[in-house]
């Protein structure tokens, strides 16, 4: 059989891991987060895996409802009842397993090791405390700074995120800041903890385009200065192209494709990624109407037994409804580019490819079952 054996590390990380020599800063494996409500169980994140290395930016892209934000919250340990991270999931940060930590232990990681910037800068700051107060709260927690010292450090941080007149601004309340300013302040607050990894959950979505560009630039500068790793979550392909080193495409709780950013944009492999790229306005100047992907992201209620994109897929064939595709290398020479689609590996026959996916699925779940 002309199957391609997946590399050893890939077998564990279920997809995106790159075989670099060094230990990844963050390593996510088989992460499954489900929400249990009276009516149904929603597997918002369903067995995804990826690595982030030092100084690297991983972009996660997907439509709303694809599980991007829940992924970020799962890493931060912020999933609340009725949500639960399933037992077999693993999130390792600097080699330490986070999913086993107690709430108290997790708090030192939150902010200290990993910081997060949320989508809506207008509501991310507590309206009744000054911006300085909220930055100083983080400083006290993670760096033990108090009083004058903390104030000075807060002013420095505000300056670092290019807020003019920081000494005065530090005493002001969030409502006195504009939207862009507030997001800068939120970033300053995240930096106050001196994190190694910054998770940005759609940090620019609520801002207008010029401010958006400024914030992206700021993040880039900060990354250069501090050697930050960034997990950047967005639904905007344009933003992804600008900020990421590598990209993971999420669909209905799963990673459907992952690749270095140029590779992905140059030759998208998964029909969903292709569709996403097609739908960017201006990619087809000759066409008089915008291309879209018909239909909605399905809500995953149970472990997948088929391809969740099949109902919307233009290249769907029979096996798509029978076999759950696994992330595999798209071709023999392309170990860094994975897609979870029965069309791949592309250098084998279709039947062989399907068989390969079935085999991979058995390998992954077989170990878990016993």
């Amino acid at each position, binding site marked *: 059989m002309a199957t391609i054996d997946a590399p050893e590390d890939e077998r564990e990380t279920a997809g995106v891991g790159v075989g670099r020599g060094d230990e990844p800063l963050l390593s996510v494996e088989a992460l499954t987060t489900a929400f249990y409500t*009276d*009516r149904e169980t929603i597997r918002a994140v369903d067995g995804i895996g990826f690595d982030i290395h030092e100084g690297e930016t991983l972009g996660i892209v997907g439509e*709303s*409802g694809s599980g991007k934000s*829940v992924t970020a919250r799962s890493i931060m340990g912020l999933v*609340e*009842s*009725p*949500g639960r991270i399933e037992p077999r999931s693993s999130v390792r940060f600097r080699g330490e397993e986070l999913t086993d930590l107690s709430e108290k232990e997790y708090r030192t990681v939150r902010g200290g090791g990993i910081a997060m910037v949320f989508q809506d800068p207008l509501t991310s700051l507590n309206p009744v405390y000054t911006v300085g107060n909220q930055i100083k709260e983080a400083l006290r927690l993670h760096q033990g700074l108090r009083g004058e010292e903390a104030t000075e450090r807060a002013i420095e941080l505000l300056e670092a995120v290019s807020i003019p007149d920081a000494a005065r601004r530090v005493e002001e309340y969030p409502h006195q800041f504009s939207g862009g300013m507030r997001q800068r302040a939120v970033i300053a607050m995240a930096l106050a903890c001196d994190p190694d990894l910054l998770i940005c959950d759609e940090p620019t979505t609520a801002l207008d385009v010029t401010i958006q560009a400024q914030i992206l630039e700021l993040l880039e500068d900060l990354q250069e200065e501090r050697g930050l790793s960034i997990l950047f979550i967005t*639904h905007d392909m344009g933003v992804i192209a600008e900020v990421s080193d590598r990209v993971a495409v999420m669909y209905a709780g799963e990673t459907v494709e992952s690749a270095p950013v140029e590779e992905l944009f140059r030759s998208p492999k998964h029909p969903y990624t292709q569709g996403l790229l097609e739908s960017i306005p201006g990619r087809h100047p000759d066409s008089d109407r915008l291309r879209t992907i018909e239909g909605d992201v399905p809500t995953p209620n149970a472990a997948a037994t088929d391809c969740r994109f099949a109902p919307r897929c233009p290249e769907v064939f029979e096996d798509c409804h029978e076999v759950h595709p696994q992330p595999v290398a798209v071709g023999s020479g392309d170990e860094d580019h994975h897609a979870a689609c029965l069309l791949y590996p592309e250098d084998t026959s279709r039947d062989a490819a399907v068989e390969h996916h079935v085999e991979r699925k058995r390998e992954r779940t077989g170990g878990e079952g016993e």
Partner: protein
Amino acid sequence: MSTTTAAEDAPSARRSEGEDLTLRERIAANPRPALTWGAVFALLVALEFGALASGLIVLTRTAVVGITAVIQVALEALRAPFEALGLEPVVGIVNDVLGVWETSQGRFPVTSEAGDISRDTVGKIAESKRHDAPKTFSLLWVQYQLSDFLFGLQHFTESVPTLLNREVIPNQGFKTGPAGPWKNTFLGLEPAAAWAVRATLVYVYAFLTMFWVFKAYNVYREHYRVADWTPRDDVVDRLRGHRWGQFGFVVVFMFVTMAVFAPTLGPTTAEANIESTYQNEVQYFDSESGQVEEVFVGQANAGAKSKGQGDQNVGPLSYDDYGRYHPFGTDVNGQDLFTFMVAGSRISLFVGLIAIGLSAFVAATLSLLSAYYKGLVDLATVIAADSVIALPQFLILIMVSVAFQGHWLSRVYSGGMLIALVFGLSGWPFLWRAVRGPSFQVAEEEWIDAAKSFGQRVPVTMRKHMLPYILGYLLVYGSMSLGGIIIATSALSFLGNGLGINPPTPEWGRAIAAGRNYVSTQSWHIATIPGVMIVLVVTAFNALGDGIRDAIDPESEGAEGGGAAAGGGG
């Protein structure tokens, strides 16, 4: 979601055809569902036509007297300064409009219709008092004539036989011997069972009718509505899933049913048992003399008092010595507490509805005006509202009640009208607060500018484009304030001394006052049952308000709903 697409997919030919037709034409095209519904509804109405019609007439008469009374008070207030200044011509004109004339003995008629003028049994103004009625066309003349006419009509409708009435299913009877069978009761049943049958049937009938009225919406939606989906469907769906709101609705509905069917529901009537006890008689089997005796209700009541000590107690679900069944026991005067409660529900509901209606009217008018004109109008409204709120409502109520003691207004509906008026005029700021925000919101909408731009008249703009938007909020907060009014009315009656609803008209608060000293005795029921009923009804009105709010404003549902939304995330 899917229904909208269905609407889009529907054959456009059919849609445009349907849109052009009026509802009447659509029914004509497919009359079957409408006719079926209508036939059943007609049957339901026919069964209880007398009771329903008389209820409707009472409401109409209330409205007539209420509206004319308000105008009358306003005109009298207007007349006062002119009188003080001695401007006789103006006073004369006001008197002419009112329909009053002056003689050396004073001003006639001094009272409003519903006050002092005696009535005969038919309810018509007694002949001897007729000369007191206004003679020329005027406000009071209209009031007298309309009210007289409606009284006659009411009397007539009450004589129309209904299925569920005390004559068809009687529960008052007497034993023929010490253990002998009951006579004069329904099928010879025990009075308790006969009463239970009647009360149950009344509620079954009421719920059936309600169900059938809701059914009309479904019939309309299924067969006659052009659109497959409207936002109202979502509101109805949300209400269907709202258990708390449904609880409220059911209890409120039972309360309203109680008020509407008050004369039928009680084991006896307020008229016979409470108001004219010495014009009615009761037959019972006297074990001492060994035969059936006949006494006045008043005498029977005197022997059936609940006063705590010794054997002076007729508790809930028991008989008194005269073979009369008392579901809630008797009160300190030996009157049937259930009958008292049932009759009392009428006045509570009446006061609540009038007050809320008036408040809602003032609140809506002011909030729309201030939202439309803003600026000074708004400022004036804010100051007026703040001033009214700054006045302690309950104390004002006491003060006004005292001030108007002896005035004809305090006799209209046993004082209920005065309370309702004070509540209406002092309660509007609470509703106004609730609708001011939404009013300003809707005033910002583009369709208001559009209406302005093509020269729509201001009142029309407000009524057609702004009012519907705030109506839901009025309903929500009106329902919630209704509880407070019921509580305050009973509190006033509890205080007594001419405050609140005047005896002998039953009011729940007065039962609590009567049973006050017996709470820790075996006659605990007198104060406890009315209190529990108030709590239940007030809670239900609040729950109903909650339910409607969550249904029309799903945003607020999210705040209460909790975690389920987190799954969507992104």
